[in-house]
């Protein structure tokens, strides 16, 4: 049985219970391709290739063409979308990232997780929510989603399910209270 809710223009969230909630509880987040971005992905290498050939034909410089080709290959790889999936077996949490046919997995044993937290992150240009684990014995938080920033309405059901699985009360953000 699966539940599906499209929350965003960019993200889809699927809660997959096909194995039964006691065995495994899978939460999928799919990053959908943006048409505008897809157009840019294919247009920009064409433009770069055209400029490279122009330089090659008029200036006969093979080095520039070579570096342009490398740049094109790097840009195409960088801009392709990466669907993300997270599976949570009862004895731990498995985090999977699917990039086309390539899957990267990380497993975190349940007894290593002290608490899952939703916290706000601030960069010089924006703020966003992130889901992290407080790991026993480690000073740094472990980010669940390293490369994408799903909206908080997608993160909340995953956070609640994690809290239920770990058996901790959900406390938002575990704020650091500072008194002057």
């Amino acid at each position, binding site marked *: 049985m699966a539940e599906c809710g499209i929350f965003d223009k960019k993200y889809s969230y699927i809660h997959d219970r096909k194995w039964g909630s006691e065995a495994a509880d899978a939460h999928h987040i799919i990053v959908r391709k943006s048409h505008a971005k897809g157009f840019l992905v294919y247009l920009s290498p064409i433009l770069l290739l055209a400029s490279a050939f122009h330089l090659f034909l008029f200036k006969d410089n093979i080095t520039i063409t070579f570096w342009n080709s490398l740049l094109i290959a790097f840009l195409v790889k960088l801009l392709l979308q990466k669907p993300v999936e997270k599976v949570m077996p009862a004895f731990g949490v498995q985090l999977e990232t699917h990039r086309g046919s390539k899957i990267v997995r990380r497993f975190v044993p349940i007894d290593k997780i002290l608490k899952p937290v939703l916290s706000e992150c601030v960069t010089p240009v*924006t703020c966003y929510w992130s889901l992290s684990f407080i790991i026993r014995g480690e000073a740094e938080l472990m980010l669940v989603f390293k490369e994408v920033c799903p909206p908080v309405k997608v993160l909340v059901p995953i956070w609640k399910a994690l809290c239920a699985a770990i058996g901790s009360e959900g406390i*938002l953000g575990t704020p*650091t*209270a500072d*008194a002057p």
Partner: protein
Amino acid sequence: MGEPKRHRILMVSDFFYPNFGGVENHIYYLSQCLLKLGHKVVVMTHAYGNRSGVRYMTGGLKVYYVPWKPFLMQNTLPTFYGTLPIIRTILIREKISLVHGHQAFSTLCHEALMHSRTMGCRVVFTDHSLYGFGDVGSIHMNKVLQFTLADVSQAICVSHTSKENTVLRSGLPPEKVFVISNAVDTAMFKPALERPSDNEIVIVVISRLVYRKGADLLVEVIPEVCRLYPNVRFIVGGDGPKRVRLEQMREKHSLQDRVEMLGAVPHARVRSVLISGHIFLNSSLTEAFCIAILEAASCGLLTVSTRVGGVPEVLPDDMVVLAEPDPSDMVLAINKAISILPTIDPQVMHDRMKKLYNWHDVAKRTEIVYDRALKCSNQSLLERLSRYLSCGAWAGKLFCLVVVIDFLLFRLLQLWQPAEDIEVVPDILLSQGEDKRDADKLRVFNGDQCLK
């Protein structure tokens, strides 16, 4: 009469905790009292070292430590438009209705006020310092202030002298400027249970040892007072470039046993230093208000101060002895203070301070300013540009150009990242009147959806 309106306020300044100072304390205490009045308050400042990101302080005060590195005297690098994306994001996600900037010397404050006006938010500005008119630095600072205050809804100054100074520097109409003085936490600054012995008179000085705080005056005054009064001792707390001069003076006049140099005093220890003395000496060359003498009076010390800036407005005549910023006049003032010292009752002084100065009262008065600001009409870009044009023949046109570019960048940002894509943060309500463990839990509500 309807219920008082709940405001959603963003306090912006480069100067906040973990720094300690007049502006920092003002923002902190004002925010705490506004939270108690039921408003939502969020503070935005730059990151301090590793302190970066979102932090929560006492009472649920949310602070954004934006990772922009300070470049000069705790000020963020002025980029004009670099802070537009983060300020826009914070204003939308916190649903801010009013932005309150603090301190003319804060570049983050000026940028935030400009971007907030571009986005249609009401803005209030509080000026905490006095500035000159003649030197190059002051001329530039005053021009920047003129730009910011050209389009501000209301302004606040901490004394009448400060209001006069701000109005002259910025050209702001006086009817738009309110005077709301600072206050002191009298619960923290209490007199000692037992007053120090009267066998020797202890004069306390706590300030940054810099030129504008009159450290050079102390170099002249201290040896003279020590010569005239063998039973007087000085305690000097604070650090700065002028500390070396004071230590040289101490060596030259062999006053090592009569002048104690404490170095930098953490804010939490200021009270313990104050209550070890009888008289507090302030030798500032310029002060818009001077919270230090409030703290000293709250601890029951008689104050001797230079008659500069807004200092005469701070304390009643029987709590302070004023002198010109001249060594001989200051020595005479200390002489007078020593003679009236037996008539001073520290506890009575403290009780009077409790009635005179109160952060809750400051918050209520500031609330009135916020209400006035929110009643101001929202002007279009063309109306705003006409106000900037009046700032000067060339400066006016430059200011208009800056504002137009800001507006265009704002529109571009709206296309790139529409406001609907920025998630609104749920309001966090702290539990009141429960034990500490339960009080630390934050109940989070997002409209009708309870997250916990």
